[in-house]
């Protein structure tokens, strides 16, 4: 919290509200340390507070340098707290340099006397770089986790403070005069207003503490919530069964209480779901600080905008998108945005923008990360593709820009000219995508060279409940996550879409494209009537996994259902085809298919078929379906079925004979009719059977 507030403050140094918040937290830390006898922590916090006092009283205005020093001070506090939490005692260490810097900042030396502050500045800058290069040296490895610890500690401290208001006021009394001996530069006269000013502030702080205590909340173990979630889902199922039993009988005395039970159960389910929801802003908290550090390190001017921080999503999802998000924002800021000179040269404003946006859309959270930087360099990516031998010359000539861009999602692919400490090692977008797909989300992006890049992440609201399509294959039912389903196609020999076989692999012609198919029954080795028989009927689920689109042939489709995803047992975790299992409304257990696992199987199956059945496939490919018919005398005749569009029986009244050539009225058009042989005899009554051909 302190981090983002400070960055906010730096951007808008006139915001008294923000400063108040920062000051209050810093002051609380200091006051509490005094109580608990943590001298090192107290000293650091105290020195930091001194600087903040100057800001608050308007004696100094915030500069990037001084804010950096304060941020460093907060880092130090955080690292001390982390160790404190681990070992139970304050770690030994020397903070004199940091305190000296803070004192210099408090004295205003960082700005007022530029000549005198030069060494300090240089030192701080050097330290800054060192810090950026090897953060573990300055902070314990758990520094990322350190923040929540600090936040919780702070909350506890505040609660304790609210209780012992009187004690706190006493504590702040001796704390306030302390600035006098430390910062000897300001004249003593100025301290008077400072002290008096602080009185209402302290009272306000106490009030804020009260307000926090008033918004009653308790901490609940996540396991308890998970358990409740399970029980509620079970209750919903039982309720559904009961409803079904009563549905047939109008006069049942159970009807009314059941309806009430039903309503309460629905509310309960929603309530329990809500306990798992958290605003997405929680995952964004670290970002302002990171972007700020990055901008100081690289000399870029970056404006981080965040829209929709209050959008809520499941706690579990939130945890899993944290790292990918961090990576993407870093990417945008480091690779995407240009330096100020380059931006000005390109005719853009000096300050680059990274914009984070989150909103709900149809049961999903959409998150957009947009920068107005240089965009992807299509030429460079093409160059890299060829360098790395990822595609042949002929292949990449045909790639569209959008397809070329997709390559950045591959492992080991980086176009950064130099590896910075922030990014550019080529381990990145592929991991991001893998992580997001793991939680059933998708990543897409658009980039215009010179204009910027926009990433769109689509993630499910919750992992616990997903919409899924229930399908049947070989008398078993399976669930396919709805997010992976693009469309459903009914395929049969006579229909518009039919399943064809090319070299032993099944394909479906769909709007001019060939869609690779996998038969679920065969994939899962469920009983098949005969392996050689090629299924021509069935439903095709057009599914998408990553960039791959493929069809899954199933025997039947039931409907779409909201299912509670449960992990599979450890002994069947190895089967990549499943992402979990679930219990349907009727109490039966079914497996949930993992589109990614199935898509891998599709490529494998295709390769196998080609390898083993090459000859058989070749024979099969030469087979043609024929339509047999008899006409006049002589043998049965045949025409390729593919050429025939319809079989018709024309009433004789629709036929016209002109000079031996026949014409027929057919669907508002006249079509010529040819007789098969010269000795053909026209029917004289009833209708004339005819084959209608299409010539295309």
């Amino acid at each position, binding site marked *: 919290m302190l981090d983002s507030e400070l960055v906010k403050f730096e951007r808008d140094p006139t915001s008294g509200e923000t400063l108040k918040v920062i000051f209050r937290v810093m002051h609380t830390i200091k006051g509490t340390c005094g109580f608990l006898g943590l001298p090192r922590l107290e000293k650091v916090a105290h020195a930091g507070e001194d600087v903040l006092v100057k800001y608050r009283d308007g004696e100094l205005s915030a500069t990037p340098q001084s804010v950096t020093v304060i941020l460093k001070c907060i880092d130090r506090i955080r690292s001390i707290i982390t160790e404190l939490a681990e070992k139970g005692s304050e770690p030994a260490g020397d903070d004199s340099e940091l305190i000296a810097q803070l004192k210099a900042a408090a004295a205003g030396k960082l700005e007022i006397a530029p000549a005198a502050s030069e060494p300090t500045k240089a030192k701080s800058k050097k330290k800054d770089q060192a810090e950026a290069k090897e953060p573990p040296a300055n902070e314990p490895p758990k520094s990322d986790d350190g923040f929540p610890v600090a936040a919780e500690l702070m909350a506890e401290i505040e609660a304790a403070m609210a209780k012992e208001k009187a004690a706190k006021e006493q504590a702040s009394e001796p704390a306030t005069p302390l600035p006098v001996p430390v910062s000897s530069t300001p004249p003593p006269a100025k301290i008077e207003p400072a002290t008096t000013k602080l009185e209402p502030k302290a009272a306000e702080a106490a009030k804020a503490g009260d307000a926090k205590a008033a918004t009653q909340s308790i901490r609940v173990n996540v396991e308890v919530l998970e358990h409740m979630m*399970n029980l509620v889902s079970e209750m919903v199922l039982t309720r559904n069964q009961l409803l079904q039993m009563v549905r047939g009988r109008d006069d049942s005395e159970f009807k009314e209480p059941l309806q009430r039970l039903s309503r309460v159960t629905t509310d309960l389910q929603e309530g329990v779901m809500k306990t798992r929801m958290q605003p997405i802003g929680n995952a964004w908290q670290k970002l302002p600080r990171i972007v700020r550090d990055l901008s100081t390190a690289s000399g870029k001017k970056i404006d981080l905008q965040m829209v929709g921080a209050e959008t809520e999503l499941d706690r579990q999802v939130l945890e899993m998108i944290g790292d990918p998000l961090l990576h993407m924002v870093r990417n945008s800021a480091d690779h995407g945005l240009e330096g100020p000179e380059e931006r000005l040269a390109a005719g853009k404003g000096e300050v680059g923008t990274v914009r984070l946006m989150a909103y709900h859309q149809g049961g999903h959270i959409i998150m957009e990360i947009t920068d107005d930087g240089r965009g992807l360099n299509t030429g460079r990516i093409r160059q890299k593709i060829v360098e790395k031998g990822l595609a042949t010359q002929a292949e990449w000539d045909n790639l569209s820009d959008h397809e070329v861009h997709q390559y950045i999602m591959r492992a080991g692919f980086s176009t950064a000219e130099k590896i910075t400490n922030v990014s550019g090692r080529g381990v990145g977008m592929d991991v991001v995508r893998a992580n997001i797909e793991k939680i059933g989300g998708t990543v897409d992006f658009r980039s215009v060279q010179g204009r910027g890049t926009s990433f769109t992440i689509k993630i499910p609201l919750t992992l616990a409940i997903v919409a899924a399509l229930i399908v049947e294959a*070989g008398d*078993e039912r399976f669930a396919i996550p709805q997010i992976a389903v693009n469309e459903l196609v009914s395929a049969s020999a006579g229909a518009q879409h039919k399943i064809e076989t090319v070299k032993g692999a099944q394909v479906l012609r769909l709007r001019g494209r060939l869609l690779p198919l996998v038969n679920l029954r065969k994939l899962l080795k*469920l009983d098949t009537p005969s392996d050689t028989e090629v299924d021509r009927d069935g439903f095709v689920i057009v599914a998408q996994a990553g960039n791959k689109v493929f069809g899954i042939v199933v025997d039947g489709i039931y409907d779409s259902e909201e299912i509670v995803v449960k992990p599979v*047992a450890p*002994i069947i975790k190895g089967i990549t085809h499943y992402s979990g299992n679930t219990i349907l409304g009727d109490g039966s257990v079914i497996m949930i298919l993992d589109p990614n696992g199935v898509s891998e199987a599709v490529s494998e199956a295709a390769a196998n078929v080609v390898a083993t059945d090459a000859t058989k496939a070749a024979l099969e490919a030469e087979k043609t379906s024929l339509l047999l018919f008899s006409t006049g005398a002589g043998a049965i005749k045949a025409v390729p079925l593919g050429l025939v569009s319809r079989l018709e029986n024309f009433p004789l009244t629709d036929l016209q004979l002109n000079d031996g050539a026949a014409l027929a009225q057919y669907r508002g058009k006249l079509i010529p009719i040819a007789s098969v042989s010269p000795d053909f005899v026209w029917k004289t009554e009833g209708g004339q059977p005819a084959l209608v051909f299409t010539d295309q």
Partner: protein
Amino acid sequence: MSSLPATVSGVNAAGVPVPAEDLAKFLTFRVGGELFGIPALAIQDIIGPQRIARIPLAPPFVAGALNLRGRIVTAIDMHNALGMPKSEKTRKLNVVVRTGAELYDLLVDDVGDVIALSMNDLEPNPVSWPESWRAFSAGIFKLDDQLLVVLNFDALLSSQTKSTLQ
């Protein structure tokens, strides 16, 4: 269930009463004519025949999954896991055991009493047994009229999983 030995709790295999501290309770059940015992404390549930959903592609010893009051439990085909021929019996009983945080359902032919036996009477596995049996048996109790094989379910599970991987 009548075919199973009616050993009185608190009396050891030889019929001599033993102090309660030495006693361990076992649930007895039959798979393919053999009598097995499993520590009663590991038992979560014993239920009648259930609808078991198949899990395609799962190892052969996995019979499927069933819904135990909202929990999905993996069912183990004990005949297959113990290397016995397929059973004729279609309506099998379910013994749900807990191992760690996981529940597994054992499909067995018949379930008997819970009997208390003294751990002092536990005999080591016969050397003549095949390796696969020695892997999951924790020892044998000599009951009055037959032998009781003490099943170490964790060992059975891991040996089966290993052999599936190979």
